[in-house]
């Protein structure tokens, strides 16, 4: 008889997982302590590295797109890197990200998804994430507890609520994390997700990336009252943070996660930010006031964090160099990847065997993985 797995961890992902932490069900004390989420120097370094890595990959991605090596379209999260990185860094390995969106490459990096695979995926080559069936940031990494997004915004919030519901029903200490943009709040599914999560007190954390724009349309044509304020109408807790401060985002999501684990229900974390590039690589965003953009340049999440860490004596240049070198290596490898076998175009529409389960993601934060931080 198949049984409901109560408080057990899901099947661990296959393959070597250098930084995977202990399941947090096993570390309640560390968590309690972490309500003051003091980050260690290693954590800071890791955060910085993910920020740099996200920016570097996306800059390279735009270039590859312009060279015709990336088909279709290309979207990036320039200026918003701190959100996906900071938020995902607050998760435990068994938590599920459902889903990172087009500005959220950092979430995939934090969870440990392989960069070469990501590049192959972007390029529509053979790859383990999507087999070429999907493109741009539309990928997930099943083995690392990341569910790939769909385009329809914000559908995946609803799915995250369903995941959280399952966690709660099974008594598991896990949360689901879902990202959404300010523009996506106008859609009915946003409401259905918020309402359901609120009425059921599901252990879910919603992270709003409020960059004031939905493609070309500014917030004042989208809503009158901001997302965080609206949360109250659903019995959902909310908090607003500086989305360009990676530690602030991390702290807010960390607190939200603990709240969810404590059975206190969902939280909406609104991260205020600015989209520094066009909607996609095709968009010069000339509709955005250059002065507004200029006013955000000093708030760049990388520059700011760089300054902070440099002050703390970190050799940030070394990090940047290492990331750059690793990336060039990955690009070189990815460019040699073959195109997918046309047979995969028509296979796997249906699942034939046992469903594959969601695996565990990397959780590099020391409070969740003391042994990894040692």
């Amino acid at each position, binding site marked *: *008889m198949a049984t409901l797995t109560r408080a057990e961890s899901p099947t661990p992902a296959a393959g070597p997982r250098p930084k995977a932490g202990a399941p947090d069900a096993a570390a309640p004390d560390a968590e309690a302590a972490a309500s003051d989420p003091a980050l260690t120097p290693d954590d800071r370094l890791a955060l910085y590295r993910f920020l740099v890595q996200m920016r570097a990959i996306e800059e390279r991605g735009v270039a590859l797109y312009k060279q015709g090596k990336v088909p279709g379209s290309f979207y990036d999260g320039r200026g918003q890197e701190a959100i996906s990185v900071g938020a995902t860094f607050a998760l435990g390995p068994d938590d599920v990200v459902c889903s990172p969106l087009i500005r959220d490459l950092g979430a995939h990096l934090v969870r440990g998804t392989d960069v070469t695979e990501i590049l192959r995926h972007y390029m529509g080559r053979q790859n383990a994430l999507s087999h070429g069936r999907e493109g741009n940031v539309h990928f997930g990494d099943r083995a690392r507890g990341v569910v790939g997004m769909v385009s329809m915004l914000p559908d995946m919030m*609803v799915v995250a609520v369903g995941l959280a519901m*399952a966690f709660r029903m099974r008594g598991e200490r896990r949360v689901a994390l879902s990202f959404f943009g300010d523009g996506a709040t106008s859609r009915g599914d946003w409401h259905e997700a918020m309402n359901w999560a609120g009425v059921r007190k599901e252990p879910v954390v919603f992270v709003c990336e409020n960059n004031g724009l939905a493609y070309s349309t500014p917030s004042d044509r989208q809503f009158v009252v901001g997302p965080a304020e609206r949360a109250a109408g659903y019995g959902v807790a909310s908090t607003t943070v500086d989305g360009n401060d990676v530690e602030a985002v991390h702290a807010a999501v960390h607190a939200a996660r603990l709240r969810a684990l404590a059975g206190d229900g969902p939280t909406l974390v609104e991260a205020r930010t600015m989209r520094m590039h066009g909607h996609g690589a095709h968009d010069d965003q000339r509709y955005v006031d250059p002065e507004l953009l200029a006013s955000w340049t000093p708030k760049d999440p990388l520059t700011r964090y760089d300054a902070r860490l440099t002050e703390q004596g970190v050799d940030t240049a070394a990090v940047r160099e290492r990331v750059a070198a690793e990336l060039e290596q990955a690009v070189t490898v990815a460019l040699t990847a073959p195109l997918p076998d046309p047979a995969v175009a028509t296979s796997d529409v249906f699942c034939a065997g046992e469903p594959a389960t969601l695996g565990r993601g990397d959780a590099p934060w020391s409070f969740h993985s003391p042994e990894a931080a040692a």
Partner: protein
Amino acid sequence: MSTMTYLQAITDGLRTEMRQDERVFVLGEDVGAFGGAFKATAGLYDEFGADRVQDTPIAESAIIGASVGAALAGLRPVAEMQFSDFVACGFDQLVNVAGKMHYRTGLAVPMVLRLPTGGGFAGGPFHSQNPEAWFMHAPGLKVVAPSTPADAKGLLMSALRDPNPVCFLEHKNLYRRQKGEVPEGTHLEPFEARVVRAGEELTIVAYGAMVHAALAAADTFEPGRVEVLDLRSLVPLDEEAILASVRRTSKVLIVDEANETCAAGAQVAALVADRAFSDLDGPVRRIATPDVPIPFSPTLEASVLPTPDRIAEAARELLAY
């Protein structure tokens, strides 16, 4: 074996599997203590409790989307639309999220969407629809439509064990009118067609409630002339069973309660016209509901839904062709 209505067989299928597999749970509007608008979940709340028999808000998109999430987490949700007509409100989650998940990400979505469908009881334009062709045109969804109590249980239990999203079309007009022997305990039926009346001269292809209309029509001819094939599953469509029957009888009449254009019947007709063409001795005929919303007034409704009389008349014409 015990004698049950089609509706009781559905409840029995749910109950049987819920007892065996703790992952299976039911959610939908008023499905809890109330037992659902049609009482398909009657008694389940008392036996399995509020977590496994969940009343939801009126939010079809969330019902489907949350089911997807629960399925990804390893549960086996069975979501009910109060009437199949309301699936339009959750259409996006169904076709874009559930249907495409496995192909895109490798993750499976083992969920069942129960859809009370069909007309014939003055339900009017919003409580009488047969939406299956929409699902058939959306890759990644399985679609089944039982016509008998035994199949209602057997196809449902198979759906509950299928690792894919399955749209389970239960015809409201069969709920209490169809009674029959239903195997006790686990009963699994494959997603395949079945010949329910053998015949040599004409194949009538039908599914759901139309199987009974087709049988009634077949009964007006001498035994052995008209074959009735119950599709039972629309995705996968049992193409070989359809072709085998038509090749043998050389004539085909396809009956569909749904609106005619682009209906399941159109797909069956296209299949036959392509792959059984050389065996055909007459045109590929269809009977379906014309392209109108289903009218409320019983006289109007009866004038658009396919009836045994209309089916028999078309069969007669074809036999004489």
